[in-house]
């Protein structure tokens, strides 16, 4: 940490700019940190570290550019630096093939009586567990796009990967999540009972 931060327009102007442009994103950065860290105290530390780093590096921020994305990048990098992540490169398939694979997942859900799985049951805990169990490269795109509403473009810029990589990782991640949730539903006996469906002589799983 350095205290001798280069001033843009004197400390007062710089601090005002920082308050107006950076601190307004505190709720969004908090939400992002909460998706990266399961423990709220860890998320608090991460948020604080993010804003301290942002304040130190404020002279490198270009006013008027996407400040939220800039803060997310700092937050993500700080998080991974803390964790000293394992190798995060994963093989990427064709995103369109991944999109087509979703058809097979849906078909499996339909066959298993789980076509309305996501609208009929509260899967909150299972979703959290399934997201946590994803390989990191897949988890981070889900956190960015599906949990934090980032566009493919923003996620690509933030992760410093091509947009095609975001798409293929995202679609693969969604398939992995759906498969995990379908397995969870089967194991938890959430499958629609064949007896109720009017098929005599068959016991529900």
């Amino acid at each position: 940490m350095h205290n001798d931060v280069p001033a843009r327009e004197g400390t007062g102007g710089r601090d005002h700019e920082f308050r107006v442009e950076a601190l307004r994103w505190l709720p969004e950065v908090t939400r992002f940190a909460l998706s990266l860290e399961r423990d709220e105290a860890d998320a608090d530390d991460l948020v604080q570290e993010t804003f301290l780093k942002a304040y130190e590096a404020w002279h490198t921020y270009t006013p008027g550019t996407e400040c939220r994305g800039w803060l997310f990048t700092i937050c993500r990098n700080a998080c991974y630096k803390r964790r000293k992540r394992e190798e995060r490169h994963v093989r990427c398939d064709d995103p369109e093939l991944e999109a087509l694979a979703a058809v097979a997942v849906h078909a499996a859900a339909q066959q298993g009586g789980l076509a309305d799985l996501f609208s009929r049951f509260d899967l909150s805990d299972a979703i959290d567990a399934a997201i946590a169990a994803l390989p990191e490269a897949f988890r981070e795109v889900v956190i960015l796009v599906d949990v934090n509403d980032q566009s493919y473009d923003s996620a690509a810029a933030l992760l410093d990967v091509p947009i095609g990589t975001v798409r293929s990782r995202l679609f693969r991640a969604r398939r992995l999540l759906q498969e995990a949730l379908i397995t969870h539903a089967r194991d938890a006996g959430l499958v629609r009972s064949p007896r109720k469906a009017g098929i005599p002589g068959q016991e529900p799983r």
Partner: protein
Amino acid sequence: MKRFVPRWLARVFSMKDGMWDDAMAAPMLDCESVMRQLWDYVDAELTPERMKDIRMHVEMCKRCYPQYEFERAFLDAVSARRRTHSDPERLRASVLAALQSKGLSEA
């Protein structure tokens, strides 16, 4: 999703209950093209023209509409996992205190 369609027209285009029974008969796009871009469509990442083409197909196709519903419900369930902080004001105060210790002037 039901839309009124004259019975004769439904027969001509293999429709049942106001939806395209034969996906190939649905307008503009075939089902495979739609499935290839369904995630992009659900995420609103396509051009306005492409969004419109796919929406027209999905709304009328008996094969694609359930798939769309399934994916939409899945994404709704995932995005609902967005967590909120238990005490945002305390966090804001502690962030501000840390920044002020690094030189941020008081507002």
